């Protein structure tokens, strides 16, 4: 009896594959056991300082998305873009890693007693990347451009109250506001660009790095700026590699193609092994199931409240990051200590029975089904969506996850507002409470959830015109309370931010806003 060769070959092939794969899985299982606890180091920078920093080197950083929206520092839409542009542009002041605003292009600032005028003294000898010295004229141009003076709309929301920007002499610029606003300083972190230039055409700033090149969907290269006024960067250049698949990022790290990647999940970190330093922080954003408050059934506050009771945030954090992360109850993350209202975290207890009851009251005794749009390049959001879908299933609501690519999400969901629900993280563009809360006023251009509340609008107006810091803080807290009570969105958490660096790289520091400061990162010998 002869066995047909083809059959034999097929069977042998399958057997060999089995043997090879099971052998490999056996080895890896042993490994996983030893690294069940990845023990990331604490969030402070000292944890990363191993060895002496050396100057030079090309740092390769993995990022999940390209800078599709813009290179314009006054028109940044996505946080991923800001995170890169932070290294290229600087404002009159800039945030430091403790959350303070420190002078940058300006040497000092003098705020008038009434809070409606800022006098900046420019720093001597600050150079643009094109070699020219920053003049008062450049500052006037940049601030006017961001504030939309002479245009219908400000490029940066909130700057419309600036009525004039004047250079009183070569080294002094006075910014006058139509109404007092002590938070304006945070908005003046907006990048300074050469007078008359269009950042969409040429990328010239004053930051520690200058822009070199970009290959769309592939890489962005920035280079150390030698004439930088401040502490120069350690590395010679930074190459951002755009890798939208989480698995490919891990593979690239392991293979040595990348030196540093931020925003990793704990599953990804668990795959990395011992050759990496892992820092544990928070992303400084508010991850939530953002609901389109203008469409059925989410235009009913009872439905939103019901769903808020149906979500177990702790469980999501347990699944995603072994419990890491910080639960939030409104549109403010804990790093904003001054404004964060911890009590709101427990506004909606996890209570499926109550959720069912509320749904029945709202006219949905049998639940309903809705589509949840999730950008497909953010694994944490997809994983969250799967857990949320499962939790909502328990109260009879079925959530269909619709994965879309980032560009589609930006145009259709965020700008087009054509969606029912979406899971993303929303961060603060500027280091102000206002940056988190302004988007929920009825006519804000970025109010993509279509939240509308007269009380909210009034409170917000009162808050921004308030000149007393304590009173203003109270008003901001009240705004968060309104958002929580109205259950504008199903607030989940501030995601944990795991940053992995190859051994031999150090200096990474967390900021209270969503940026990666590359000037502090260095190689060690």
């Amino acid at each position, binding site marked *: *009896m002869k066995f047909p060769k083809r059959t034999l070959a097929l069977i042998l092939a399958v057997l060999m594959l089995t043997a090879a794969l099971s052998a490999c899985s056996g080895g*890896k299982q042993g490994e996983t056991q030893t690294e069940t606890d990845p023990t990331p180091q604490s969030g402070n920078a000292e944890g990363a300082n191993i060895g002496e920093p050396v100057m030079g080197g090309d740092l390769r950083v993995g990022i999940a998305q390209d800078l599709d929206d813009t290179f314009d520092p006054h028109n940044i839409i996505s946080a991923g873009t800001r995170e890169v542009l932070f290294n290229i542009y600087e404002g009159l002041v800039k945030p430091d890693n403790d959350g303070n605003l420190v002078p940058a292009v300006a040497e000092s600032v003098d705020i008038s007693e009434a809070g409606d005028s800022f006098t900046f003294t420019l720093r001597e000898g600050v150079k643009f990347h094109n070699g020219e010295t920053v003049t008062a004229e450049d500052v006037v141009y940049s601030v006017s451009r961001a504030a939309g003076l002479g245009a219908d709309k400000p490029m940066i929301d909130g700057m419309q109250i600036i009525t004039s920007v004047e250079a009183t002499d070569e080294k002094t610029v006075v910014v006058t506001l139509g109404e007092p606003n002590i938070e304006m300083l945070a908005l003046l972190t907006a990048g300074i660009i050469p007078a008359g230039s269009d950042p969409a055409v040429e990328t010239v700033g004053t930051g520690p790095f200058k822009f070199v090149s970009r290959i769309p969907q592939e890489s962005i290269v920035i280079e150390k700026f030698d004439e930088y006024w401040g502490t120069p960067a350690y590395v010679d250049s930074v190459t951002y590699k755009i890798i939208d698949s989480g698995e490919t990022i891990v593979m690239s790290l392991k293979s040595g193609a990348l030196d540093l990647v931020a925003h990793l999940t704990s599953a990804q970190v668990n795959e990395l092994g011992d050759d990496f330093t892992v820092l544990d922080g928070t992303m400084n954003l508010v991850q939530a199931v953002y609901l389109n408050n203008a469409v059925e059934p989410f235009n009913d506050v009872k439905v939103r409240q019901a769903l808020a009771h149906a979500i177990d945030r702790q469980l999501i954090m347990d699944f995603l990051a072994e419990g890491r992360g910080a639960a939030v109850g409104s549109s403010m993350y804990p790093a904003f200590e001054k404004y964060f209202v911890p009590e709101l975290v427990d506004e909606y207890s996890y209570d499926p029975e109550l959720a069912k009851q509320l749904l029945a009251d709202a006219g949905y005794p049998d639940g309903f089904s809705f589509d949840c749009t999730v950008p497909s390049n953010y694994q944490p959001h997809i994983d969250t969506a799967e857990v949320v879908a499962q939790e909502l299933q328990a109260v009879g609501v079925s959530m269909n996850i619709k994965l879309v690519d980032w560009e589609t999400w930006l145009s259709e969901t965020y700008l087009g507002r054509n969606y029912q629900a979406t899971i993303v993280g929303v961060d603060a563009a500027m280091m102000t409470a206002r940056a988190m809360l302004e988007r929920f006023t009825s006519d804000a251009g970025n109010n993509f959830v279509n939240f509308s509340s007269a009380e909210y609008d009034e409170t917000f107006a009162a808050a921004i015109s308030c000149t007393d810091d304590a009173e203003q803080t109270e008003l901001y807290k009240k705004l968060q309370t309104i958002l929580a009570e109205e259950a504008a969105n199903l607030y989940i958490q501030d995601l944990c931010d795991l940053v992995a660096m190859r051994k031999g790289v150090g200096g990474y520091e967390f900021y209270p806003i969503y940026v990666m400061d590359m000037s502090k990162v260095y190689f060690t010998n």
Partner: protein
Amino acid sequence: MRRTPNYNLILGCTLTAATVSVIILGFFWTPYEPDAMSIAERSVSPCAAHLLGTDNFGRDILSRVMQGAGTTLEIAFLAVSIGATCGTLIGGLTGYFGGIADEIIMRVNDAVTAFPSVLLALVAVAITGGGKTNLIIVLGILFIPSFARVVRGEFAKQRNMDYVKNAKLMGVTNLRIMFVHILPNIAPVLLSSIAIGFNNAVLAEASMSFLGVGVGPTESASLGRMLLDAEAYLFSAPWQALSAGFAITILILGFALISDGMGYRPTWRPVAKRRRKADA
């Protein structure tokens, strides 16, 4: 004289029968609820309680493979049904009648076949949106040309045969000749292409879902989707990827062997030949 057994067909049928019965069982009963998450049992390696282990959400992989293979097979079955039915109709008509219509339809057919089918499917799904129903329709339509081509060739061959000419002389209607007289004669070829079609459909569903444009994450477990989810845990929990991968392999192997076996021509070997060998 001895007839060598059709090993391919036997093995293929056994494999397919075994997997299909597990899948059918999965429609009624799975060891665990396929979507039930459990924080305490995340990424458990295969053990007695979870024969294939659990995934990162603590879902039982065996249950998910059973359900996922069911989804995959369901999509394959419906897509192949659409493709085979339409393909047979089109191929039959054009092959039997020939003429200018035949030329035109077959050139259109060539044009469609010129593109890789997964690429076409990706484009189609990008326009219509993902999801199970869309996937079935898109794959079904994409399978029409291959069936049409095979059936057309056979019909063109058969229509000149004596039995068809006889039937025509006796006044049998064209439709009856096509579907009662000719169709049964091309059954082996058709069945063989159906088996290949299943093969392609399973692969297409798996790859589309793996690319994230097929079955959605909340719709139902699917083998391709499971592979995609497992990708992130390739090294820390390899059983996830292995389970889904093996399920696909076995499904495809079964169908491939069947289709191989269908085209099998038995060889007749004189018994004497063996004896002579033994003597030597």
